[in-house]
């Protein structure tokens, strides 16, 4: 976006209907209100598409810094020039835009929307006086209808953006996964878990199994692992972005929920692996003992 050439000499003569403003030249004959109208007209011409999108409820996640600075500047100028009490129904529209805005950054968007509100207060009487825009003639009902119709599309678009980000992440992750797969899969805690399970199975076969079920010590061990896990260095948590996660994200499930459920799923997988190793070792020891005939069940 081009920086707004607002300076001391902002007021320019009109270049004709629909003509794009050229380099700013000072016109000393204009009054303050005419100057403001001119600024507004030029801004509208420069950012017409973006403004229409905002009014219609399309959200743009990538709000440029230029926009913020521009609106801030405009806000400061307008603050000094226009008194506050010109509240109209445009405020509602401003709020609508605010609520429809995605999850990008609330701080900056709040500033933006404040500016937008202020902007809209000011724009209303001038547009009316110019008679160039049809926005003023729109009733509130129409706007609300449009808002609801756009809401679904807007949500879908934001989700789609998230899914695309996820896809890019997936693409960037692939080579790193190929390189360091083996190293990542067997971290120290996992090896410790497996060895612990095998040793416990041997111990259980030797001493405990006559008195209680073989699954009781295993459950105790799992509880112990849950407590011990915080004392082990956590390997870099790779977020496995699969087609499934992308599909879930597109279907409207929040990313946080998906990541949590994936985490739970992986933990369940770990417990199942432990159980398999434990059970295998137990059976193996049992069969060895039977083979050598030292003990009968």
């Amino acid at each position, binding site marked *: 976006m081009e920086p707004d050439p607002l300076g001391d000499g902002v007021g320019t003569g009109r270049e004709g209907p629909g003509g794009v403003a050229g380099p700013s030249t000072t016109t000393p004959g204009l009054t303050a209100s005419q100057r403001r109208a001119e600024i507004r007209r030029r801004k509208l011409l420069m950012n017409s598409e973006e403004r229409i999108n905002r009014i219609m409820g399309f959200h743009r996640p990538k709000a440029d810094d230029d926009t913020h600075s521009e609106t801030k500047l405009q806000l400061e100028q307008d603050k000094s020039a226009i008194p506050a009490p010109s509240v109209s129904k445009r405020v509602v529209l401003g709020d609508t835009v605010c609520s429809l805005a995605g999850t990008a950054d609330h701080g900056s968007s709040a500033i933006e929307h404040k500016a937008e509100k202020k902007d809209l207060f000011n724009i209303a009487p001038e547009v009316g006086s110019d008679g160039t825009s049809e926005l003023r003639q729109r009733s509130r009902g129409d706007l609300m209808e449009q808002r609801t119709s756009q809401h679904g599309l807007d949500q879908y678009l934001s989700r789609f953006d998230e899914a695309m980000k996820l896809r890019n992440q997936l693409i960037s992750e692939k080579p790193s996964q190929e390189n360091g797969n083996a190293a990542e*899969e067997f971290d120290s805690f996992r090896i410790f878990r497996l060895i612990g399970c095998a040793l416990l199975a041997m111990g259980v076969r030797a001493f405990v199994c006559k008195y209680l*079920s073989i699954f009781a010590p295993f459950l105790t061990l799992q509880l112990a692992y849950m407590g011990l896990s915080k004392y082990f260095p956590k390997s870099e948590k790779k977020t496995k972005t699969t087609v499934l996660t992308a599909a879930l994200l597109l279907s409207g499930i929040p990313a946080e929920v998906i990541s949590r459920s994936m985490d739970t799923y992986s933990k369940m997988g770990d417990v199942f*692996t432990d159980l*398999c190793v434990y059970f295998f070792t137990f*059976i193996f020891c*049992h*069969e060895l003992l039977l083979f050598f005939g030292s003990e009968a*069940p």
Partner: protein
Amino acid sequence: MSELQVEAETAAATVGGAWLLVLSSVFLCNLLKILLPSCSSIISKLLQKDAEQEYQMRSEIQNMKQELATISMMDEFARYARLERKINKMTDKLKTHVKTRTAQLAKIKWVINIVFYILQAALMISLIWKYYSEPVTVLPSKWLAPLERLVAFPTGVAGGVGITCWLVVCNKVVAIMLHPFS
């Protein structure tokens, strides 16, 4: 209680080393799966005898190129052009040959893979078929409580370890054991 013990003992006597048989089958299958690419390349080398011919053609082209380098294009243009045409023809022939051989190689590998997976499936199905009603090993049922029914599935023998459970366990353990080699 004594009846149960007798039952368990008889079952154990009938099964014998079933657990070991299943374990070794699973281990062999997993090992073969790891070795499958190298196995298929060895088999394809044995089946394809065109490699020698290809090698001859390559050396021939090399010789002709050397010869071409010695000929002056200005002085003996006709000979030079003839030799160059010959080289081009031979190169084209070699390219077609290599293409055919590569396609054949891919086909052989595909067939080997398919055969392997079919054999593996057949082995697993036959194992399940054989040990559908009898457990692979038997433990006192109170050891496996409260999951004895799940572990014994589909045999229904109290304290028995069913084929499905044992296959799952073996697959997991063998996969962990062979992970460093894969």
